[in-house]
């Protein structure tokens, strides 16, 4: 058993038993925090697909999280008001609304990523970073002024999405559902990375010219990955909306994109599991520092700088003591 497998096994046991531990210690907040970590972990891991495997540095990933969240918020609003368009009205059964809402959220985020990606991928390098940021900011201001859906005030959900078999309004059920989504994503993503598609993408990320010279139309593969990552971020957004039962334009702000990037780097870029570790460390640090000082950012800032300077490959490779090669 490699250290990585051991780590994953222990993590799995820990995560499975966490709800029981939270209840025994009379600390249900722990569960809510853990769910949030899982959701941010999912968003960060989806960004890792772009950063670590596709060599596409997107500073606008929050946009897709936000769109996923807004899809949930908007559908819930109409569900509550009972004015869903007829095509969707069939699915307005409150015990199974999630079956329609969650996929629609993913679809909406994927579509946005497809369109934005097609435009952004005309550029490379620094320009790509900035144009992804520009589109995210554009959407941010769009949602701020979108009065029908709360604008800057955001939208509150009256309840979480309904799903058969699980009751998301129950925090334990919700936690397990988030865990399920994350594990499913990680499984599919690690398959994807080693699939034909993933191999070609990793190649294109490593050496674009060479890949083109071998006959790969790198643009199409990149766009496909951008769309997949966007859709996955949309799922994270949909879960986040359900978790806080609230959506607001703040989710699309560039600071969230920055934080997701920080989680990826902190955990270990190009490792898929690392960003989840990164999300956990970042959120726990924030939570922990916040408890001792209201000036927690004055500590978080230097910590990030130190992390960059000294833990170059991120925490996950350090944790499983594996050295990743540098490209």
């Amino acid at each position, binding site marked *: 058993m490699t250290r990585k497998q*051991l*780590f994953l096994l*222990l993590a799995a046991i*820990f995560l499975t038993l966490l709800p029981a531990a939270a209840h025994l*210690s*009379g*600390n*249900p*907040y*722990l569960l*809510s*925090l853990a769910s*949030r970590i899982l959701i941010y972990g999912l968003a960060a891991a989806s960004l890792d697909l772009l950063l670590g495997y596709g060599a596409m540095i997107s500073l606008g990933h929050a946009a897709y999280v936000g769109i996923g969240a807004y899809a949930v918020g908007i559908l819930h609003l109409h569900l509550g008001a009972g004015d869903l368009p007829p095509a969707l009205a069939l699915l307005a059964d409150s015990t199974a609304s999630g079956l329609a809402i969650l996929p629609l959220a993913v679809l909406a985020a994927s579509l946005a990523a497809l369109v934005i990606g097609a435009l952004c991928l005309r550029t490379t390098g620094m320009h790509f970073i900035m144009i992804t940021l520009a589109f995210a900011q554009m959407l941010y*201001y769009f949602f*701020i*002024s979108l*009065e029908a859906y*709360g*604008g*800057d*005030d*955001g939208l*509150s959900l009256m309840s979480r999405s309904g799903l058969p078999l699980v009751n998301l309004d129950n925090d334990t059920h919700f936690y397990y559902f988030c865990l399920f989504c994350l594990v499913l994503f990680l499984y599919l993503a690690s398959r994807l990375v080693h699939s034909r598609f993933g191999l070609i993408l990793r190649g294109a990320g490593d050496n674009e010219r060479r890949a083109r010279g071998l006959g790969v139309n790198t643009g199409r593969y990149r766009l496909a990955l951008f769309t997949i990552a966007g859709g996955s971020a949309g799922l994270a957004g949909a879960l986040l909306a359900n978790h*806080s*039962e*609230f959506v*607001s334009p*703040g*989710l699309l702000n560039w600071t969230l994109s920055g934080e997701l990037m920080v989680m990826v780097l902190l955990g270990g870029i190009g490792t898929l599991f690392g960003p989840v570790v990164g999300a956990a460390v970042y959120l*726990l640090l924030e*939570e*922990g520092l*916040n*408890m001792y000082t*209201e000036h927690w*950012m004055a500590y978080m800032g230097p910590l990030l700088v130190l992390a960059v300077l000294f833990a170059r490959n991120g925490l996950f490779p350090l*944790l499983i003591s594996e050295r990743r090669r540098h490209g």
Partner: protein
Amino acid sequence: MKKLLTGLCALALLFPATSFAADPVKIGMITTLSTKAGYLGEEIRDGFSLAMAKEGGKLGGVAVELLVEDDEAKPEKGKQIAQRFAQKDGVKIMTGIVFSNVAMAVVPKLVRDEVLYLSANAGPSELAGKGCHPNYFSVSYQNDNLDEVVGQYVTEAGHGNVYLLAPNYPAGKDHLAGFKRYYKGNIAGEVYTKLDQADYAAEIATIRDAKPDAVFFFLPGGMGINFVKQYAQAGLGGSIPLYGPAFSFDERLLAAVGEAALGVKNGSQWTHDLDNPANREFVENFRKTYKRTPTLYAAQGYDTALLLASALRQTGGKAEPAALRPALKKADFASVRGNFAFGANQHPIQDIYIREVVRSDGGFTNKTVKKVFTKHVDAYAAECKM
């Protein structure tokens, strides 16, 4: 692997199990301490703490513990903190939220979950009207109050052509609606600016071009500072008078705006020069403790604490929402505002004033000019079915 286990232990220590036995009554304050608006939360917190300090850490003779957390003006963050207060610390009484959008994200769920929420600032219309709730009390105002008073005053002053300006987000539109409710004249123009816009040169040029009798604006925080300064610099300060709610003219902002604000009239439910014993005591103590003149936010924080103290005294220390609710509703305390009672929607029925920015020794401050509304009831009270 050992590292991992130590890590997990450390994690567990971060979340000690809570016990509820004979502890002081916990009050959770979710407020904005960071970002550009950080001073607002500071004022509310300081006002609240001052009332606690007066009793030596107690309220109404009951030991209380104030937990303060920074929501960074983000609704998501406010949600998280509320959840942590409720689930981890077992807090049953919360207060402190500065911004309406944070309140809208946090409050409805809290009050459904049987937590008492006493608003020390934000008073969104939804919570005054259809969304009112027995567990929700606004100790400050309903948002529109401070605009309504200006609308009334501007009409009385005989300005027949007023230009309106607010950021392009729902609160901005609400505030302008509040003004229009009592303003009877013509509207010269209505402009919505980008949220967090810094430079208003383009809007000011347009205003000059429109030649209105007066300008009413709602631009909270730094936006207001920028606008007022640039407005004065453009030479419009003398020719077209500015009006607005108190938010851009509290004592701490005045220090940053400086002379540009001189003479501007603004609407507020409180000023430090209100002549009543409670207020004199409050202002004096606040100045002594914090070496500055309190703002309306501090007064709201102080009043919130006094209200809670009065209720705790009546229940004899029982902090269960069911016990506190009727006691709170009586509003049996000496508010620094003078007249204070709760309406049917548990929002204040109070007097509202127009104040003017004047020079004080070494700085600028507000002087009460006129009481425009007496025992004013907000516009949404009728919609509340409680």
